[in-house]
């Protein structure tokens, strides 16, 4: 059959495909690719030496350090609670389960600015615990603990969200087999569950990390913007930009853009791994493969 004159009835005409491609890819070019390129072009506007100098500024270095510290501090909590929540939700039935799933999504729905304000109202000078904290000389708001708390709040859903559908799809047969064969609870977890969910867990951690390092609104409200002390990299970008220090702002921004690129690459790699393992799990189970080696073929 020649495909020259006939066209699949279930495909768009050639000209329409071309138009849709141009519109769709053009939209992505102007809205996504161009900004990404612009970050780096602006950062190197003053040449390589200005770029390096901007990054080596003590305030920039301390902002990078603080950003990394907060993320490293927050991620273990995300992992532990995310796995716990997914375990309870995916492997057991209980009343109010769908409500719990909705509540886990809540931090995504609340505006970051409102999140910051909420913790300001609790721990701030005029807040609920403000007087008590002041009397005991504990600083939470406008200090590191407050920034950690809002980051915990903001990043809470990521791990659980990735794991719940994954663990639901995997079912509980393997774990039940392990238990009935005499494995202890932790043996079951580390030898059966964790290997099964490792890519999904990593995926959630990558997303949570990107958000933890990049969070702006919530951290901005509770940080107090103390230079060299409570300034994360995104807040540092804002300060430099507002001081019309474009090269400095975009140099710091380029570090964050690099983080975004690493995140995208890591995410893609993990997605491939997950797909590969699903394929590997599925193939031996397909009926046509089961019968073949046993020699039933004529």
């Amino acid at each position, binding site marked *: 059959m020649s495909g020259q004159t006939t066209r699949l009835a279930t495909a768009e005409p050639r000209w329409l495909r071309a138009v849709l491609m141009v*519109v769709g890819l053009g939209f992505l070019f102007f809205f996504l690719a161009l900004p990404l390129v612009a970050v780096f072009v602006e950062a190197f506007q003053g040449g390589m030496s200005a770029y390096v100098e901007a990054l080596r500024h003590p305030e920039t270095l301390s902002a990078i350090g603080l950003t990394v510290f907060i993320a490293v501090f927050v991620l273990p909590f995300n992992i532990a609670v995310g796995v716990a929540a997914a375990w309870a939700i995916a492997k057991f039935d209980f009343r109010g389960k769908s409500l719990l799933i909705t509540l886990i999504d809540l931090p995504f729905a609340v505006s970051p600015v409102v999140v910051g304000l909420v913790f300001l109202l609790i721990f701030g000078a005029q807040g609920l615990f403000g007087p008590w904290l002041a009397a005991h000389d504990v600083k939470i708001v406008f200090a590191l603990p407050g920034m950690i708390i809002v980051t915990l709040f903001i990043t809470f859903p990521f791990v659980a969200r990735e794991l719940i559908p994954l663990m639901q799809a995997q079912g509980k047969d393997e774990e039940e087999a392990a238990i009935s064969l005499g494995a202890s609870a932790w043996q079951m977890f580390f030898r059966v569950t964790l290997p099964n969910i490792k890519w999904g867990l990593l995926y959630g951690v990558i997303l949570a990390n990107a958000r933890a390092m990049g969070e*702006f609104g919530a951290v901005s409200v509770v940080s107090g913007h103390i230079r060299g002390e409570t300034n994360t990299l995104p807040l540092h970008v804002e300060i430099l930009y507002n001081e019309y220090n474009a090269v400095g702002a975009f140099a710091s921004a380029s570090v964050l*853009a690099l983080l*975004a*690129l690493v995140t995208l690459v890591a995410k893609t790699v993990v997605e491939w791994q997950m797909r590969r393992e699903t394929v590997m799990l599925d193939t031996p189970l397909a009926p046509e493969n089961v019968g073949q080696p046993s020699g039933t073929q004529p």
Partner: protein
Amino acid sequence: MKNKHVLPGFGLALGITLVYLSLLVLLPLSGLAFKASSLSAGELWNVATSERALASYRVTFGASLLAAGINAVFGLIVAWVLVRYPFPGKRLVDSLVDLPFALPTAVAGITLATLYAGNGWLGRFLEPLGLKVAFTPLGIVVALTFIGLPFVVRTLQPVIEDIEPEIEEAAASLGASRLQTFLRVLLPGVFPALLTGFTLAFSRAIGEYGSVIFIAGNMPLISEITPLLIISKLEQYDVIGATALALVMLVISFVMLLAVNALQWWSANRHHGREKVSL
């Protein structure tokens, strides 16, 4: 026959989750409501319905609605192109769609502001045409479009992938034109997902702060979004004002969350129903 507690750890896992969720999320959020309840209702109402607050709701909702609409149209095209059409570099482009999730909002904000400023790469071509984007409400729409795009594309992609070719073949063999097939068969199938993506993008846009403030110009009554108004109230030590506005936003967040849940439930049920029919 089924033993309910073969697997261990239910109590521990659920306990950790509930304690963590309560301490970190639920109690703090109810703290906001508690704080608001200690203020007089009249006072709250006055702040929440002041001229500046009402203008900020208009800007926030208008720009969010417009941005989510733009994303619904272009996101559908992007998702369609990514699922259906082969082209070189497709995987790269597909990964790029997640950029707004990965790029910190402050970085997006200063970059978009620079691109669309009068002397920027895009602004220098748009401004002679009379299109001022940076430091106008239009800039807010641009930033919110950037932020919301992946929500629509990522919600639509799996649904478009799942469309069974038989449906399209049936429509075509019954004499439907491609446009008729799209409007009568394909679009109704993907509509719940499209609406879900739209709602996700919209609800994200309403609360967005970091990417907007750099490009918005932040003129009270004209290009001031509600989250920024909360911040400026805080900077003037007007806790009451900030609390009243935050309460309005929190209520809206709850409504949006419920709407998204209802939509996903509808979408899943429809999908399920369709699968049943095809069996």
